[in-house]
């Protein structure tokens, strides 16, 4: 850090990765040693997709640093009883005492074995914010890597609060942990509740604003008029959770109301599995010898293997073909002169009854509107046109479909994600310029860019690291408490997978054992950072009660929030402006982060740590030292656990494993390795250089935004439209579970359909709630939904005054948003106090009447219900989290649910 003192004014470079739409770059103005202003980093204007800017959340960081309610000293709990009603009795202790206490618990656990008697890790850790805490936790990942098995499956919002099904299916189909339009080129975007203007970060906002000025038409289909709906050319207020019907009707229009020639037939024939022949049992009909899927070649009028050259695959028709079907557990059935049709023909038949007229009453949207959107989608697809990207000619298909939360997770998520991926395929708009793109990978490996994860898999598709369902490979005994490998083949087993398993199962099983499953023990030590599941999960009351039973919880704490309330030790880490870290930036990241550069940015401490807050790297090193894991920890850092591998072919800045390294030494080595990585070893400047310049990048080819060129290069196809692999896996999983006499996952197993049929999700929800809580669902006539807030989402900033102040300028924050007509019907006026109650629980809030919401829908923006967090506990803002039941009936096959519930409203009082 540069010198500080009276009269000295300087600027420090940093980054903001408070939300998944980052990271973005910023500078901090320091006056007399005090941080006073956040500014964009205009030095990065040319390399950052949003001109070096940061969103409103970053401006809360100054108040975060100086927040009067910060935990500024290590604290120890003195009241052994835990719970919402218990005063933790936190008392100040020294760092030595706090770390010794934590280390003693860790060492005791380790001495007993890394796994407990149930086979679960004794150490658990929860980090919120879609992985963003790693941008602030310094070398803690190296400590966790050194430790060994850690249970990361206690969720903080996953499942209902994330794009869960999209993560899994997106990665399967096109390396899309999240999905984005190619906004800079897109011409027509159909958005089902994707709230990019609120949750797309600066890159999303900038790219979409530019697109609007270019004339891109976005049709926003959602129950309430969100920020994004407001900024769209058209708002279609669809009934909640009926999006699949709208999407299926679009498929119907394209397949049944237009000539085939309007579709991108070449794309369908050669880049998808559309021509693959389907056998009577629903599996691909394969060549008997090679077991490769067969297609029917119209030129030779015979079936050939899918990768035969110089063929003209048939998309439709019925053919007599010899072949073999391979079902679950490799069970093969030879077919002779079997009448079969291509997958595309099955799709056409599948879509026949899903007309706009059929969808109209389900979605409460006029058939004409659905048909018009489908027709406009087709009209803007520019089928057969091309565009040149960096000298390479690629298809130009400027149409895309985006899905938002509650559409792309929970029941229906499969249908919607499938339809969203299929529709672009029909016009050749998947992973091509202007079309629907994946952003990044988290389940596939390696994760450095999407191209490198594309390797050949079975049947001409990309490889996917499924959790095996084969009889002798299936993980029958869960490795972590969410049982992700046991129950969800699609979630894979990367570092991210645990947190994407059915994380609510981890919480649910703390209260009740699941039949034939090992008893879910509590973790002996639970580490918590940048997350507050006590208010952010579903059924927060149950989650709070579960965590209160954990024997030893360590929270890296900013303030005394609801989860920290249950902690045994609070450790004050440096906040965003105080800590030191180097972060990988650029390439393609979540949401709309598509860069033309990649490299690294430094989070340089702008101000000294307040109180006794300590840099996370220092804390991690101390933990490693005190648990006897120093060497393993240093080796993990050397291996790249802190973000950069410290050695390469022509450089080596590895740390001596035997030594304790101070924070700056660790990051200096990291900076040197990063410099070397960016310059192919020609330059090796360290921390000082980064402090001066803030970031360092090299070009990233825009071609890598698109997967299509890589698929062409590797001769692979998108796994659309027919989900034969999932169909087989579902059958195998069913066998495995039934072999263990486990039947409580049966409803989920039904989701493994090769073509996902429409389901009445409203009825499913209502039935589950009525059955489980023994209520008359007619008494709960409204759908309660939520929406993200740019000001708050992921930020953990609910206690920041500036954020509250500016969020209040955006309508709906802190309110129960209700249609005026509904208000009139209920005798509720604007500002009235109401209770909104589900079958599980209730919440109170003030009503905001407006016209931009369906009369059958209520909206609560963000997540509140704080009862301990300083400042926020006085908001009295409603929150739906406590109203959301954790039910297996509402859990889909990917392990997620959707963020909505049926509720009733009772007026409690007039406007204040």
């Amino acid at each position: 850090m540069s010198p500080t003192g009276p009269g000295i004014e300087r600027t420090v470079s940093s980054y903001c990765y408070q939300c998944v739409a980052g990271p973005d770059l910023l500078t901090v103005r320091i006056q007399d040693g005090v941080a006073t202003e956040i500014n964009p980093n205009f030095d990065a204007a040319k390399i950052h997709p949003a001109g070096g800017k940061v969103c409103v959340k970053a401006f809360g960081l100054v108040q975060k640093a100086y927040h009067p309610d910060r935990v500024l000293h290590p604290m120890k709990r003195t009241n052994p009883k835990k719970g919402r009603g218990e005063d933790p009795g936190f008392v100040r202790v020294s760092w030595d005492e706090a770390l010794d206490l934590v280390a003693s618990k860790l060492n005791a656990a380790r001495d007993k074995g890394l796994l407990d008697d149930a086979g679960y890790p004794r150490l658990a850790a929860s980090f919120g914010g879609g992985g963003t805490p790693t941008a602030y936790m310094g070398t803690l990942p190296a400590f966790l890597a050194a430790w060994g098995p850690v249970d990361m499956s206690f969720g903080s919002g996953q499942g209902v609060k994330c794009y869960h099904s999209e993560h899994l299916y997106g990665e399967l189909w096109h390396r899309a942990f999240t999905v984005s339009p190619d906004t800079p080129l897109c011409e027509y975007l159909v958005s089902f509740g994707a709230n990019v203007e609120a949750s797309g970060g600066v890159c999303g906002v900038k790219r979409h604003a530019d697109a609007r000025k270019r004339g891109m038409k976005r049709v926003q289909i959602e129950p309430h008029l969100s920020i994004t709906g407001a900024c769209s050319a058209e708002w279609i207020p669809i009934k909640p959770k009926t999006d699949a019907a709208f999407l299926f009707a679009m498929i119907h229009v394209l397949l049944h109301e237009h000539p085939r020639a309007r579709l991108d037939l070449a794309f369908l024939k050669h880049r998808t599995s559309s021509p693959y022949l389907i056998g009577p049992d629903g599996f691909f009909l394969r060549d008997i010898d090679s077991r490769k899927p067969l297609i029917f070649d119209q030129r030779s009028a015979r079936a050939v293997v899918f990768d035969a050259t110089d063929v003209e695959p048939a998309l439709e028709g019925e053919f007599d073909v010899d072949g073999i079907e391979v079902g679950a557990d490799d069970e093969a059935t030879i077919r002779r002169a079997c009448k079969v049709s291509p997958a595309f023909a099955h799709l056409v038949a599948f879509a026949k009854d899903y007309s706009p007229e059929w969808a109209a009453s389900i979605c409460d949207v006029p058939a004409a509107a659905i048909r018009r959107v489908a027709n406009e989608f087709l009209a803007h697809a520019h089928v057969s046109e091309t565009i040149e990207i960096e000298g390479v000619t690629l298809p130009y298909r400027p149409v895309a479909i985006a899905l938002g939360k509650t559409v792309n997770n929970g029941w229906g998520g499969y249908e919607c994600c499938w339809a969203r991926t299929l529709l672009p395929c029909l016009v050749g708009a998947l992973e091509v310029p202007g079309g629907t793109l994946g952003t990044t990978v988290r389940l596939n490996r390696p994760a450095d860019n999407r191209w490198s994860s594309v390797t050949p898999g079975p049947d001409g598709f990309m490889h996917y690291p499924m959790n095996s369902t084969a009889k002798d490979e299936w993980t029958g005994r869960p490795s972590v408490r969410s049982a992700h490998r046991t129950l969800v083949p699609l979630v894979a087993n990367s570092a991210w997978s645990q947190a994407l398993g059915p994380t609510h199962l981890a919480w649910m099983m703390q209260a009740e054992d699941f039949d034939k499953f090992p008893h879910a023990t509590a973790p002996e030590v639970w580490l918590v950072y940048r997350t507050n599941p006590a208010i952010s999960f579903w059924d927060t009351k149950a989650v709070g009660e579960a965590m209160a039973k954990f024997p030893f919880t360590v929270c890296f704490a900013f303030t005394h929030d609801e989860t920290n309330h249950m902690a045994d030790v609070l450790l004050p880490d440096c906040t965003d402006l105080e800590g030191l870290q180097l972060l990988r930036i650029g390439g393609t990241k979540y949401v709309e982060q598509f860069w033309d550069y990649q490299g690294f940015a430094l989070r340089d401490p702008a101000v000294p740590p307040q109180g006794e807050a300590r840099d996370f790297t220092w804390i991690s090193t101390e933990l490693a030292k005190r648990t006897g894991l120093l060497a393993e920890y240093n080796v993990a850092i050397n291996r790249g656990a802190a973000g950069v591998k410290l050695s390469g072919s022509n450089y080596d800045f590895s740390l001596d494993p035997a030594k304790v390294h101070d924070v700056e030494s660790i990051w200096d080595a990291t900076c040197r390795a990063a410099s070397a990585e960016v310059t192919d070893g020609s330059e090796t400047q360290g921390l000082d250089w980064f402090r001066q310049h803030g970031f360092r990048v090299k070009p990233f080819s825009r071609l890598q935004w698109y997967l299509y060129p890589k698929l062409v290069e590797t001769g692979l196809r998108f796994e659309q439209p027919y989900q034969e692999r999932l169909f087989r896996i579902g059958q195998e999983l069913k066998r495995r579970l039934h072999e263990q006499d486990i039947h409580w996952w049966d409803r989920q197993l039904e989701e493994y359909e090769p073509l996902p049929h429409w389901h009445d999700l409203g009825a499913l929800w209502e039935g589950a709630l009525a059955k489980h809580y023994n209520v008359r669902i007619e008494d709960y006539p409204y759908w309660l939904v939520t929406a993200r807030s740019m000001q708050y989402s992921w930020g953990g900033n609910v206690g920041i005054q500036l954020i509250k102040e500016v969020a209040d300028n955006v309508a709906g924050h802190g309110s129960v948003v209700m249609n005026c007509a509904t208000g009139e019907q209920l005798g509720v006026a604007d500002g009235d106090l109401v209770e909104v109650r589900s079958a599980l629980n209730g919440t109170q809030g003030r009503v905001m009447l407006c016209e931009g919401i369906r009369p059958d829908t209520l909206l609560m923006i963000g997540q509140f219900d704080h009862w301990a967090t300083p400042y926020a506990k006085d908001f009295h803002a409603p929150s739906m989290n406590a109203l959301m039941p954790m039910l297996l009936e509402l859990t889909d096959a990917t392990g997620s649910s959707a963020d909505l519930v049926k509720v009733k409203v009772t007026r409690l009082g007039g406007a204040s």
Partner: protein
Amino acid sequence: MTRWTMVADLERCVGCQTCTAACRHANATSPAVQWRKVLDVEAGSFPNVSRTFVPVGCQHCADPPCVHVCPTTATRQRSDGIVTIDYELCIGCAYCEVACPYQARFLVDAPHFAYGAAMQNEIEREDPARLGVAQKCTFCSDRVDFGLENGLTPGLEPRATPACVNSCIADALHFGDIDDPNSNVSRLLREQKHFRMHNELGTEPSFFYLYAKAGDTESPTATASALPAEQQAEKIRTRGVEPWHQPHWNWKAAGNFLCGGAGTGLFAVTAVAGLDGVSFAVPALIALALVAFGLFLLIFKIGRPLRSIYVLRQPQRSWMSRESWVAAIFLPLAVLAVWSENGALIGIAAVFGLLFLYCQGMILKEAMGIPAWRTPPIVPLIAVTGLTEGAGLFLAMLPLLPELRPVTPAVAAATLVLVAARGLAWLTYSTGLRNAGAPTRTFEVLNAYRPWFLAFGLVIPAIAIMFGFVVTTIPTLLFALGGFSAFAAGWALKFILVTRAGYNQGFALNHTPVRGSGTAGPPVKPGWILP
């Protein structure tokens, strides 16, 4: 010449408030003091609803009402169009705040911090000079000036550009010199359709809103010159957008209008009565006390009372300054006149009293930010009610001051005429307001008062005074009753006008914007009843 101009692209803006936060940082304003903010405006009815995000703040008008009204010259306009405030001259009278039709000005009386006690960053940036004075967006003039001094182009170079523009993540805000035809803002305004908010008020803001590309179509109603007559003010979410009551001119400010009006009216009536040889000392002194008390209340209302003398600095333009000058002449002159019992002097003093009364009317009329005040018929209404209150008060004093009784019939007759004249002035005012349009709530307040005004301002005074002429047994009491009723109705009228009906202009859009494709929507003016 140079005229710095802000251009907000409504098609781009997403209402994220990053500019709001950046402005709070750059200018170190107190919590809730948002020189720049973005409105969230909903219009229409389900399912045909629009939602528009509208950056607002000081519009740096070419003809700024705040500059016109400022009594101290604290608010000025630079040659480049930027409207500035000299914190050392401002007395915190808040006249500029009621004059601004854009609700752009703030007045903070006491230190206010995010969490009660000041944090380090707040201590570092605290500026006591801003307490008790008006403050608002400066277009970050310090950055503009820094840029110009260092050869940087404001609007293009971040260091020379307002913080809100720098921070805008949608590139919705642009800043530049509109007098330069090649500037960024000139180009944008040439290429895109735009409007200025409340342009019908003639303020010529330096703040333009882009709402459509040149080739975009507009809905038929959007091209109409007038705003639609019916707005669904009651039915749509309009908090923060529809007019709210001005917070600054409270009962103390109203006290000046009450006491000053009645006092000068009483003095004038007394002066006329004095022509008939009646001793005028007591009522005249009461009148002077009233005027002085009204001014005294103001001292305790303004943010910087120790600088109150600065109110005299701007008689060229400001009616508040003029009122102060007139008061400075009227009060000593009137005291001298009463002391000397000089009829000519008292007549001259009465003329100054009437000038004071006229100034009060003009003060309200020049408050362009308050539709209920700025309508021209406010001037005769204030003047005639002041005289009516004076006459009424004169009659009301009759039971206690028998020496005034010789002129009673004449004053009673005059009061009757004044009551009628005031009724006419009220009618003219009300009609004028309806014709001009005003906030819905202003009409609600005035309509609620109307029967009381009719009863106590017209019917009771008229009947009581007329009966006073007829019923000879208790004429004094009847005259006093009628007079007091007329006086009280006038005070109530002004009190309500200032402290209850003083809703500000609110915000309005001439067009809701195109969003990528489609048509620009119709105008929106929430919370208004339009002509």
